[in-house]
C-alpha cells in the first residue's frame, strides 16, 4: 500500500501495483543497481592521482584510441552499408529477400565467441577472404574493425528500415514533378527524413562496439599498445588481481556508455518527433 500511496498519480481499479512495482524495484536493485554502484564505490576508494595515473597510462590510452577509433569507423561503415541494405530490402524484390532480411539479425543471435573465431578463420592469411587480400586483417587493428562491423551491422538496418517503409511515396512524386532527378530526390528529400534514424543507428552500433569483447579478442591479436581493446585491459588487470585498476578503467567506460545512452535517448525522442508519432 505504501508504494501506491506514495507514487501513484491517478487512482486505478487494477490490482497488483504494489506487488509488481515492489518486485521490480527489489530485483532491479539487487541485480543491477547494487552491483553497478560497487564499481563506483570501489573507484571512490582510490585517491585521485592513483585513479588518474591508472586511466591515463600510455597502454590504457592506446586502448582507448583503438576501442573508440575502431568503434567509430565500424559504426560509420555500418551507416553507409546499413542504409544500402535497408534500402534494398525495403524497395527492391530479389530472390531470397526474406531470408536475407531474417539473417540481418544474425549478429544479435550468434554468440560473440562464435562470431570471433569465425571471423578470425575467415580473415586469416590462409582464410577464405584473408587469402584474397593483399594485407593482413586477422591479428591487426583492422581485425578489430571487422569484428565491430559485424557486431554493429543490424543496428542501422533495423532503425532505418521502418522509417523507410513508412516514407510517403507522394513526397518523392512531388519532388519528381518539380523536376528533381532521382539523385536530388534522394539527397534532398529522402535522406533528411532518414537522418534521425541513421544517427540513432550509428549511436547504437557505436555504443555496442565500445563494450564488445567476445568477438574482438580472437581476431585482434591483443598486442599491448597496438591491438589491445579496453575491455581486454580490464580483464588483464583482473587476472593480476588489480581490482582497483580494473574498476578505474571500467568506471571510465561506464561513464562513456551512460553518456551515450543519454545521447541515444535524446536522438530517439527527436526521431519520434520527426516521424510525428
Amino acid at each position, binding site marked *: 500500500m505504501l508504494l501506491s500511496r506514495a*507514487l501513484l*498519480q*491517478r487512482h*486505478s*481499479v*487494477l490490482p497488483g*501495483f504494489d506487488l*509488481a512495482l515492489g518486485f*521490480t524495484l527489489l*530485483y*532491479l536493485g539487487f541485480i*543491477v543497481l547494487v*552491483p*553497478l554502484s*560497487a564499481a563506483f564505490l*570501489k573507484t571512490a576508494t582510490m585517491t585521485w592521482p592513483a585513479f588518474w595515473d591508472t586511466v591515463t597510462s600510455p597502454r590504457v590510452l592506446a586502448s582507448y584510441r583503438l576501442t573508440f577509433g575502431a568503434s567509430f569507423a565500424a559504426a560509420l561503415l555500418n551507416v553507409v552499408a546499413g542504409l*544500402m541494405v535497408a534500402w*534494398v*530490402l*525495403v*524497395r527492391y*524484390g530479389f530472390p531470397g*529477400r526474406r531470408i536475407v*532480411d*531474417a*539473417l*540481418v539479425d*544474425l549478429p*544479435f*543471435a*550468434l*554468440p*560473440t*565467441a*562464435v*562470431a570471433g*573465431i*569465425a571471423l578470425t*578463420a575467415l580473415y586469416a592469411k590462409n582464410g577464405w577472404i584473408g587469402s584474397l587480400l593483399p594485407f593482413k586483417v586477422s591479428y591487426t587493428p583492422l581485425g578489430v574493425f571487422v569484428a565491430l562491423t*559485424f557486431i554493429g551491422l543490424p543496428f542501422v538496418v533495423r532503425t532505418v528500415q521502418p522509417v523507410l*517503409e513508412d516514407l510517403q*511515396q507522394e513526397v518523392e*512524386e512531388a519532388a*519528381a514533378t518539380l523536376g528533381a532527378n532521382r539523385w536530388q530526390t534522394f539527397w534532398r528529400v529522402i535522406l533528411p527524413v532518414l537522418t534521425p534514424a541513421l544517427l540513432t543507428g550509428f549511436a547504437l552500433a557505436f555504443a555496442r562496439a*565500445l*563494450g564488445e*569483447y*567476445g568477438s574482438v579478442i580472437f581476431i585482434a591479436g591483443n598486442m599491448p599498445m597496438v591491438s589491445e581493446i579496453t*575491455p*581486454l585491459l*580490464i580483464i588483464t588487470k*583482473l587476472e593480476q588481481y588489480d*581490482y582497483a585498476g*580494473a*574498476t578505474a578503467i*571500467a568506471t571510465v*567506460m561506464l561513464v562513456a*556508455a551512460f553518456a*551515450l*545512452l543519454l545521447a541515444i535517448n535524446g536522438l530517439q525522442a527527436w526521431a519520434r518527433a520527426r516521424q510525428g508519432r
Partner: protein
Amino acid sequence: MSTPAQALPLLPTAHAGVAPRPIRSATGEPPWVKGLLIGAALAFLAFFLFLPLAIVFAEALKKGLEVYWASITEADAGSAIRLTLIAAGIAVPLNLVFGVAAAWCIAKFEFRGKNVLLTLIDLPFSVSPVISGLIYALVFGLQGWFGEWLRDHDLKIIFAVPGIVLATVFVTFPFVARELIPLMQAQGTEQEEAARVLGASGWQIFRRVTLPNIKWALLYGVILCNARAMGEFGAVSVVSGHIRGQTNTMPLHIEILYNEYQFAAAFAVASLLALLALVTLVLKYMVEQRVKAQKRGGRSRRVTPREPEA
C-alpha cells in the same frame, strides 16, 4: 518486415517473394542502379554475415563427421552444454517474471519516476559484458563486499556456478521487459478494467485478459533472452574461473579449445551455438509475424468485439 508492395503502393501488387514488375516510374531507379545496389548490399552482407556463418560449419566438418561427433560428445563438452542450459534455465524464467512485473506496473499505471525506471531497466544493455562480470566480482569476490563473509560460510559465488548464473541474469535483464512494455502500453487498460468491473480477481485478469494479449511478444522476448543467455561470453568469462568440466559454459569451452589449437573441436561446439542462433532467427521471424498480426488485431478489437475465449 514489409513486402515491397507495401513500400511502393503505386506499383502493381507484388506477392511476397516475387519481384515487382519492372516499371520505370518517377520514383524508381533505373535497372542498372538497382542491380548495382542489390549487388553491393549482398556483397557487404556476404563478407560480414553469410561467410562467417558458413565457415563455422565448414571448419566444424573439416575433419569429418567422426571428429565432429567426438568433439560434441566428449565429457568436457557435455558438462559445458549442461552448465549453459542451467544458466539459461535460471536466468530466462527470472527475467521473464521480472519483465511481466515491470511491464504491468509501467504500462497499466501512472506513477512518479516511471521514466527513470524505464531508463534503469535498459541500463544493462549499455554496460560492457566484461564490466557486467567485474561488478559481481566486486560484490561477491574474495576482495569484494561479501567476500570474507562468504568464505567464512564456505559459500562460493565467483568462480562457481552461482556467479555464472548472476552474470547471465544481468546481461539478459532487459530483454522480456523491453518487448512487453511498448506493447502493453499500446494496448491500454480498458480490457483489464472491464474485467475488474465484471468481478475478475487480479490473477484472473492477468491470465484471461492480459496474457492472451501479450503471449507472442512474451515468447519473442524469451527467445531473444535465451539466445543471449546461452551465448554470453565476456561477463561469464570474468566470473567463471575457467575450471574445465565445472565452470565452463559452451562459449568458454570454445575459447579453451581454440586457444589449444583444437580448431575442428572448437568449431564443432561453435556450430551447435550457430544452429541455436539460426533456430532463434526462424522463431523470431515467425513470432514477429504473429506480433504484427496481433498489433493489427489490437487496433480493430476496440471496434469489433471478439468472441469470448473458451
